[in-house]
């Protein structure tokens, strides 16, 4: 995608996979690593830092893996506290929410769940995937596309417990797959409590079966003029790129908006210096 890694070291990641079969997980994992061209040393780094807990497999061998507790106290709460303590991470990924907890998926229950997640996982970042209701196919249904900015909040209403999610999550990622001709396109966007929206970015697989998604190189019509002005020049910051657009008649706000969007879409690269902590 187009998100610059800002950590000062590789992150420790723990991924709770509740649904994948081992064969499917291995296939996907290897395909992504191959497509990224990871070296032996990089693969070793990955193995050290990414732990994938196969909950489906644990349950298949009849071992007990309790659902995340709704209340403190009891064996399940003790299990989860110990699990987190023994597997410290900078990032936990829980996939998906409906297998993770034992409650309903209405606003009240999801609110309690998200509060409990914050308390148990402390200062780590936590990503929880959550299914949406199926498409109805009715005309006028909100879809994520390149040409429909500003629809993500409305689109996310299609998730169960969406009121609680919007109230308690710091970031809501919106992802939708579409077929455009013969091409599979995955639209990826996000909105957050404390930052600007990331309008949907079209992603496509780098090669058939690579499982590695990168921004597609299509230029939206409204950005074509700005793209043509910026495409062959390397900039060290967004201000310099915006200056070029302003010299060609764009207002300051339009110039920065276009530069920002072109960067999100991976169409313009800014050689920003790494921030010093």
């Amino acid at each position: 995608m187009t998100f610059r890694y800002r950590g000062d070291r590789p992150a420790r990641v723990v991924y709770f996979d509740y649904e994948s079969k081992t064969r499917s997980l291995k296939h996907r994992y290897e395909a992504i690593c191959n497509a990224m061209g990871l070296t032996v040393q990089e693969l070793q780094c990955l193995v050290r830092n990414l732990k994938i807990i196969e909950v489906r497999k644990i349950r298949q061998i009849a071992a007990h893996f309790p659902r995340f507790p709704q209340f403190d106290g009891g064996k399940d709460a003790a299990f989860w506290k110990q699990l987190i303590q023994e597997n410290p991470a900078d990032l936990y990924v829980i996939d998906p929410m409906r297998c993770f907890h034992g409650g309903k998926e209405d606003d009240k229950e999801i609110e309690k769940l998200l509060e409990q997640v914050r308390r148990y996982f402390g200062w780590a970042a936590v990503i929880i995937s959550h299914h949406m209701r199926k498409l109805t196919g009715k005309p006028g249904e909100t879809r994520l596309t390149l040409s429909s900015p500003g629809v993500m909040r409305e689109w996310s209403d299609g998730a169960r417990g969406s009121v609680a999610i919007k109230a308690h999550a710091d970031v809501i990622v919106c992802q939708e797959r579409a077929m455009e001709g013969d091409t599979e396109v995955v639209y990826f966007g996000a909105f957050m409590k404390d930052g600007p929206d990331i309008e949907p970015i079209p992603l496509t697989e780098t090669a058939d079966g690579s499982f590695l998604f990168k921004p597609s190189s299509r230029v939206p019509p409204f950005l074509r003029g700005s793209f043509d002005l910026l495409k062959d020049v390397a900039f060290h910051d967004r201000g310099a790129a915006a200056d070029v657009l302003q010299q060609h008649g764009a207002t300051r706000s339009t110039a920065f908006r276009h530069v920002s969007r072109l960067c999100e879409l991976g169409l313009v690269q800014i050689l920003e210096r790494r921030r010093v902590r």
Partner: protein
Amino acid sequence: MPVPYAEAVLSETIPIAFFDPSADVPEEQMLFDGLLESSDLVVWIGREKHRKTNVMLQLSICAAQAVSS
């Protein structure tokens, strides 16, 4: 020396914390620029079979390798 007009207090009986404007606040550890930082709670929404697991796995691999996604 600035006089704090509010101080952080963690009572023994009632856990409570007041904002202290004079205190140094550690910077949040950014993981992915503009998307994810430490202590963020992220809900990742999408329909079934819309590649959520795929893209989350890709992001996890990138984070564990310290490479941009």
